[in-house]
C-alpha cells in the first residue's frame, strides 16, 4: 500500500495550492475531498478579488493571492476591472475613510475618488454616492470554474486525488496517520486539514476541539442583461459585492446570512436576508430593477473568534497541520496554501503564519 508524505483533507483552493507546493518540494501527496475538488466555498463564493474588502493584517497575503489569480487568467475567468467602494451617507463615509486609510497604510493601492469620478466611470450607478474609494487591482474571477482548473493542476502535477471520499476517521500512529474514508484507508506521515467548514469535525477526530464557527454566506445571480457595469462594486460596510460578468449576468453578494450546517451539508437561503442584499444592490445600481434574479445559493465560511486564519501545527499533534478560517480565503488561499506547504516541508515560510494554538484559550460563541 502506498504511503504518502502528506495527505491533504480538503480539495479547495487552500488544500490544492498547498498540495502543489508540497509535491513540487518532493513530497508524495494525496488530496481527499468529501465532494468534488473546488466544489464548496472555493467554487460557490461570489468570486470577488478585492483588496478593499480584505483585512488590514492580511493585506500582504491578499496582494500575493491576487497575483496567483491574475496568472491563472482566462482559465478561471480572471478580470482585473478595478473596483469602487461606495458610501451613501455620512455614517458610511466615516466608516469608508477610516477603514480604507488603514488598508492603504497596509500596502493596498487604494485611492479616494469623488462621486463625480465614480459617475464618469460608472454612469449607471446610483446618484446618491457621497464618498468612494478605488483600487485598480480589484476585480473578479469565475469561482464556478475553480473545480475544473484545480483538478487540472493536480492532474498535471501527478498528485493523487480521491474525490467523493468523505473522511470518517483519522488515527494518529507512531509514524504518522491513518486517514479513513468510507471505502478506503490512507497512510501518511503528515496530514493537512484544509477542510473549510468541516475543519472542526476533522480536528475533533484527533481530539482537538477548535472554536470554529461557520457563516452561511448568500450569493444571488441574475439573468443576462445589457452591459451596464464594468467595475467590481463594494459598500462601505462590506455588506455588498456587485459585478457584471462578461456574459451579462450580475453577481450579488456581501456575506448576508442564510442558514444550515456543515454537518448536514445543507445550506439554505433565507429570504429575509437575501432580500436585504438585493435591496442594497438595487439601490446601488437602479438598472437592476427590471432584471430577474435566477438563482441564489449559500456557501460555508468558517472563522475563529479573532477572525484570523488558523495556519500551523494542530496543537498537540505533531505531523498534523491545519489551514482554515481565512477571511477572504478565495483571494488569499493561493498565497497562504504554499506558505503552509513550506512549513510542512521544514522550510521557513516567506510570510508569518497564524499559530492555531492561540485559539484554544478562546471560547466559541456558538
Amino acid at each position, binding site marked *: 500500500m502506498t504511503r504518502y508524505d502528506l495527505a491533504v483533507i480538503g480539495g479547495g483552493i487552500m488544500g490544492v495550492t498547498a498540495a502543489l507546493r508540497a509535491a513540487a518540494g518532493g513530497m508524495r501527496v494525496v488530496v481527499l475531498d468529501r465532494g*468534488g475538488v473546488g466544489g464548496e466555498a472555493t467554487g460557490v463564493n461570489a468570486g470577488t478579488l478585492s483588496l478593499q474588502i480584505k483585512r488590514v493584517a492580511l493585506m500582504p497575503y491578499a496582494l500575493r493571492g491576487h497575483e496567483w489569480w491574475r496568472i491563472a487568467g482566462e482559465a478561471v475567468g480572471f478580470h482585473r476591472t478595478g473596483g469602487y467602494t461606495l458610501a451613501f451617507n455620512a455614517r458610511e463615509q466615516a466608516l469608508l475613510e477610516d477603514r480604507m486609510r488603514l488598508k492603504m497604510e497596509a500596502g493596498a493601492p487604494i485611492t479616494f475618488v469623488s462621486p463625480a469620478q465614480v459617475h464618469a466611470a460608472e454612469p449607471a450607478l446610483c446618484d446618491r454616492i457621497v464618498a468612494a474609494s478605488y483600487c485598480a487591482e480589484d476585480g473578479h474571477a469565475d469561482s464556478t470554474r475553480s473545480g475544473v482548473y484545480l483538478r487540472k493542476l493536480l492532474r498535471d502535477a501527478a498528485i493523487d486525488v480521491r474525490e467523493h471520499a468523505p473522511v470518517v476517521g483519522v488515527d494518529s500512529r507512531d509514524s504518522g496517520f491513518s486517514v479513513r474514508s468510507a471505502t478506503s484507508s490512507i497512510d501518511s506521515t503528515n496530514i493537512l486539514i484544509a477542510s473549510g467548514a468541516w475543519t472542526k469535525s476533522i480536528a475533533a477526530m484527533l481530539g482537538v476541539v477548535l472554536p470554529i464557527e461557520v457563516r452561511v454566506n448568500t450569493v444571488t445571480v441574475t439573468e443576462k442583461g445589457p452591459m451596464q457595469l464594468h467595475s467590481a462594486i463594494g459598500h462601505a460596510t462590506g455588506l455588498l459585492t456587485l459585478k457584471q460578468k462578461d456574459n451579462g449576468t450580475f453577481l450579488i453578494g456581501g456575506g448576508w446570512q442564510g442558514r444550515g450546517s456543515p454537518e448536514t451539508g445543507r445550506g439554505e437561503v433565507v*429570504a429575509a436576508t437575501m432580500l436585504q442584499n438585493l435591496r442594497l444592490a438595487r439601490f446601488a445600481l437602479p438598472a437592476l430593477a427590471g432584471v430577474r434574479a435566477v438563482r441564489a445559493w449559500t456557501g460555508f465560511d468558517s472563522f475563529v473568534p479573532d477572525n484570523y486564519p488558523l495556519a500551523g501545527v494542530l496543537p498537540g499533534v505533531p505531523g498534523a497541520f491545519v489551514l482554515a478560517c481565512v477571511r477572504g480565503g478565495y483571494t488569499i488561499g493561493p498565497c497562504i496554501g504554499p506558505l503552509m506547504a513550506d512549513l510542512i516541508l521544514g522550510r521557513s515560510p516567506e510570510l508569518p503564519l497564524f499559530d492555531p494554538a492561540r485559539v484554544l484559550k478562546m471560547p466559541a460563541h456558538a
Partner: protein
Amino acid sequence: MSAMIDVIILGAGPAGAAAAVEAARRGLKVLLVDEAVAAGGQVYRIAPGIRARDATPEREAGDAIRASLAASRVDARFGHRVWQVERNAASFAVHTVNATGPVTLTARALIVAGGAVERHIPIDGWDRPGVMGLAGATVLLKAQCMLPGRDVVVAGAGPLLLAVAAGIVHGGGRVAAVVDLQPRSRWLRDWRSLASRPDLLARGARWMATLLASRTPMLHGSALRRIEGDPVVSAVVVTRLDAVGAVVADGVERTIACDAVCLGFGLHPATDITRLLGAAHAFDAAHGGWHVVTDEHQSTSIAGLFVCGDAAGIAGAAAAPWSGRVAAVAVDRHLGRVSAAEALSAVTPMVAKRDRAARFGRAMTQVAEGGDGIVLAIAPETPVCLCEQVSRATIDAAVDAGATTLSEVKSATRCGMGPCGGRLCEDAAARLIGLRTGTTRAAVGMATGRPPLRPVALDHLAGEFDYDALPIAQPSPL
C-alpha cells in the same frame, strides 16, 4: 394579525384543489396558492374571458373543481408566484410575489401539489423557433385557443401526443404526422391497467378517432432525427427505431414538411419545492423518475410537509383528487385535531380510490418511458442546455475531465445555469452523465434545489423600500 393559518396548499390543480376543499370541510384554516388566474392546474386550464366552443370532459372537470372551491371556505390566492419556501421550527413560510409586490404567507403545515414537469430529450434543431413542448402546446390550445402552427408535427412519447394532436385537429389545424417513440404494440401491453378507467380509455379513443378521421399519419416506433429550418422550423427528419428503441444505423430517413413541432417525452414529478426543503427523494421509473418520498398518507420525511398529485409520483389527474383528500386528512391528524383511528377510517376509502385510479396514470407513465436509445443518438453538437447553449460534446468532455455529478458538470459547463434553472435540461444531462460514467440515471441523482423557484425581477422581490431604513448589520471585521 390574523390567527395562524393551519395549512397552505401550493398548486390549485385537481390534487391541490381537492386537498383544499377537504381541509376546509374538516374545519382547517386553508390558504390555496397558485400562479394562475383560476383553479384547474395544467390539465384543466381554462381560457379566461374566452367562451368555450363546446363542453369537453376537461372543461367539465375543471368547472366542477372551480365550483367546489367557490362553495368552500378555502381562501384562494391566485396570481401569486411562489419563489421560496422555508421551514421554520413549527411552521412553513411561503414567499411569493403578486402584482403588487412581495407577499409572505406562513402556516403550520404545507401541502405541495406542484404537479408535473415535461421531460425533454434534446434533438438536433430543437432550439429553432416553432418548436415547443407538448405541455406548452396544451397551454396554447386550452388557455389561448391558439394553434401551435398550421401544419404541425407532434413527436415524442406518452398520452399527451394524442391529446395535443387531437386538439390541433379539433382547432382546425393540420397534423403533418404524429411521431411516437413507442411501437404500436406498446400501447396494448398495459390494457388491463387502462381498462381500470373506461372513461379515460374512451377519451383516448376519441382522440384516436379524431386523428383517424383526419387521416393524420401515425408513425410508431419512430423518432425525430433532426428539426430543419432557417431558422424557423420547415421540416423534420424521421427515423425508425429498432426493437430496443435504438436509432437504426443507416436506417431510412424520411423528411416531413411542417411549420411547427410539438415535442415531449412524458412527465416527471415537479420536485423543485421539495428539493428546496430538503425532503427525501427516490428514483422510480414507474413514478416518472425522481420524486419526493411519500408514505401511504402523502406524508414526506419532513414533519408537517405533505405532497399530493403528480408531484408525489406521476399517477394522473384521476388519482389526484384522492391523494389530495388523503393529504388533507393527514394534515388534520398532524395538527392533532383527529385521532389516529379517526384519520385512518376517513382515509382508507380514499386510499383505495387513489390507488385504483393511479393504475391508469402509471400505465400512461410507462407508455411515455423512452429508453436510452435516443439519448445515445443525441448528436455531439446538439445543444442540451438551451439557456446556456451547452452541447452534448461539451458535457461529455467535462465528464471525461473528471466532472461526475450534476453540480460538477454544471460548474464546468454552465449546463442548467440559465433562467429555466435546469428544468429543461437536467434530466437529459443526468442521463448523459450516467451513460458516460457507466452508471444509472438513479445514481446520478438530482441537482440541488435553489431559489427563486422561477426567475423574478429584482424590483418585484425588493418591493418598496427606504434605503436609510435598511437594517445594516455589523460591518465585516477590519
